[in-house]
């Protein structure tokens, strides 16, 4: 399928090692790193009902067990139920011979035609019900058991405060290794504590012997089995309290709520995406998508014939600068280094041209030893910043933190083509929204080498690139690995210092994998 950002063709390599198209990557403005869905922490922001779009405060949602107060799900097929009205003729109270029309309501499913009458529920005089809901008849007993356990746990806690006791305690119960997980039957083993009887349980589940468990009745053998009358597994599992066998016992359930999520950078713990509170709004309070900050790259012309290992070919990339500041882009050979704790594997993996960032790292958590290999190198070029020494240490602490807090992704990627980097940088002017609609806008002149930049318009430019296929197995589709280095103006510094500091200009890197044989949209 064609897509503006060429979802399958151009993939950005996130810090954690995930491969994502640009519209699925975020850019943390504080860490100046790419982040993705996988390596940020998700939080529940607000609850709402997907049917009535009604917002629900989380305390209320908790109280209502994450269910909407007004909407119901069909117990038969899980569609949303609608309320239907009927009128019946009822005699007036004072004049029984006179009939008046009265409105009654029932629930009906538009998909499988289940109605609340099928469940034997009487029609209601109110649109809001109330409709019977599945309930565990023994819920009270469960509460009693729960109370009992709490009491035991508190006893154990109290006894643990006496230091000398715990030593022998586990040995008393620990005949087998599961000791530390056993129920707390012998909270303490000092004689006087041991001799104290355990409190008797408030509720004990009854046991049933032969006389309480009658054999199946003859109806089971004589009646014909009609499958549609027996509930399916999914229907039962939607009513865990009762799990009825007959479809006639299915009861409507309140609709489960949905949530809006906010995303937070794990390294600097700042929000990367925060939706607006209202369920009907599709806007965001904070939305740091990479396509607002990182140069967009698209493949304009793919390879027109298969690339033989060792051979060269020419492709055209289209660059765009989405930011408010000019940028200069330089192409470099692919240099992504996954976050790793043990540096020894890095070089080997890279040399092979093929690696799996988590193959080693996700299984190997030898935390204390790690190398400080920067994943994206940041070179500060603004002189307003203080000396290089402190910068370097700030940089390394960030990488150390990333190594500790970022989850790593086991995404396999093979990169089998290299770029022959052009010597020149490509300067892109800032984005100007009006120029998008002005066909006759003046194309800025940057004195480009026409052998490098064949086309240019506003903040966009096309670039010729020569690629060369590695001398490896030629059967796999050609994938170009490329690193771009670009200027990024960090306005956050100026914002946070309230204008005391200048916006900071930094040099950032982004790593991309481009599938060369796909036809671009």
């Amino acid at each position: 399928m064609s897509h503006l950002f060429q979802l399958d063709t151009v993939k950005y390599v996130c810090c954690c090692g995930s491969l994502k198209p640009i519209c699925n990557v975020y850019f943390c403005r504080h860490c100046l790193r790419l982040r993705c869905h996988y390596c940020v922490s998700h939080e529940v922001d607000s609850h709402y009902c997907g049917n009535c779009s009604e917002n629900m405060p989380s305390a209320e949602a908790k109280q209502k067990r994450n269910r909407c107060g007004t909407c119901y799900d069909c117990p038969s097929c899980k569609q949303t139920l609608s309320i239907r009205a009927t009128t019946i003729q009822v005699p007036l109270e004072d004049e029984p011979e006179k009939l008046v029309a009265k409105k009654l309501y029932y629930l009906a499913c538009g998909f499988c035609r289940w109605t609340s009458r099928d469940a034997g529920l009487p029609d209601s005089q109110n649109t809001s019900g109330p409709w019977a809901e599945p309930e565990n008849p023994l819920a009270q007993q469960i509460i009693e058991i729960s109370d009992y356990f709490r009491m035991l746990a508190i006893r154990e806690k109290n006894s643990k405060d006496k230091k000398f006791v715990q030593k022998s305690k586990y040995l008393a119960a620990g005949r087998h290794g599961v000791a530390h997980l056993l129920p707390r039957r012998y909270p303490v083993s000092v004689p006087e504590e041991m001799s104290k009887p355990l409190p008797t349980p408030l509720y004990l589940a009854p046991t049933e012997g032969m006389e309480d468990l009658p054999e199946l009745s003859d109806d089971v053998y004589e009646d014909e089995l009609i499958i549609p009358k027996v509930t399916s597994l999914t229907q039962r599992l939607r009513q865990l309290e009762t799990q009825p066998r007959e479809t006639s016992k299915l009861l409507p359930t309140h609709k489960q709520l949905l949530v809006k999520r906010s995303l937070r950078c794990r390294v600097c713990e700042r929000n990367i995406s925060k939706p607006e509170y209202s369920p009907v709004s599709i806007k965001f309070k904070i939305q740091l998508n990479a396509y607002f900050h990182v140069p967009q790259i698209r493949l304009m012309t793919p390879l027109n014939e298969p690339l033989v290992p060792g051979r060269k070919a020419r492709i055209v990339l289209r660059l765009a600068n989405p930011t408010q500041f000019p940028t200069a882009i330089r192409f470099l050979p692919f240099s992504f280094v996954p976050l790793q704790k043990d540096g020894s594997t890095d070089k080997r993996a890279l040399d092979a041209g093929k690696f799996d960032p988590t193959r080693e790292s996700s299984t190997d958590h030898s935390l204390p030893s790690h190398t400080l290999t920067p994943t994206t190198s940041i070179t500060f070029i603004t002189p307003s910043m203080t000396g290089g020494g402190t910068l370097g240490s700030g940089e390394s602490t960030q990488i150390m933190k990333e190594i500790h807090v970022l989850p790593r992704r086991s995404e396999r990627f093979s990169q089998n083509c290299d770029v022959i980097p052009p010597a020149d940088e490509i300067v892109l002017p800032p984005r100007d929204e009006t120029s998008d609609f002005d066909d006759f806008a003046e194309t800025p002149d940057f004195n480009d080498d026409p052998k490098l930049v064949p086309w240019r318009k506003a903040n966009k430019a096309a670039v010729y690139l020569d690629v060369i296929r590695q001398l490896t197995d030629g059967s796999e589709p050609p994938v170009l690995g490329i690193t771009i280095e670009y200027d990024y103006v960090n306005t956050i510094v100026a914002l946070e210092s309230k204008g005391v500091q200048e916006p900071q200009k930094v040099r950032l890197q982004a790593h991309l994998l481009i599938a060369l044989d796909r036809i671009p949209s």
Partner: protein
Amino acid sequence: MANLQITVGAVVCVEAEIRGDVRIGTKTIVHPCAKILATGGPIVIGDANIVEELATIENKSPEPMVIGNNNVFEVGSLVKAKAIGDHNIFETKCFVGDEISIGNGCVFGAGTKVTPSQAVPDNSVFYGQPLKHRLAGERPSAQTLQIDFLSRILPNYHNIINPTIKREIPALPAEKTS
């Protein structure tokens, strides 16, 4: 000799495609572009049915196909059933095979396809993909208001076949050859 009998009170639009021996009961509405094809035996449609646009009722077998009362054939449904009782609903784009006999109060949900030879029990509801089957507690209610409305409105915008004039409709080409 193929002929079409329309009982007084039925509204059958001229644009509907009707072939073969077809009898249509009173208060039955046949929308334009509906197809009733008695390519085999005759089709006998009862009272107060609605046949919507692009719905197709077809009888290929030599046996007559008897359709009861108060049935609804929604847009794009294709029904070839052996026999149809009362108060059934054939939702949009459903397909009902030619080996099925349908009782009363059945619903064939949108897009469902039911072909195996069987007698469908009363108040069955088929729905979903993959097909699910449930038995409803009560049959769907009759579309009386809709029928009244259509029989008032449709003649305003479409030419209606006058039931009092007995007419012969051209036999199917297939029939001619046989």
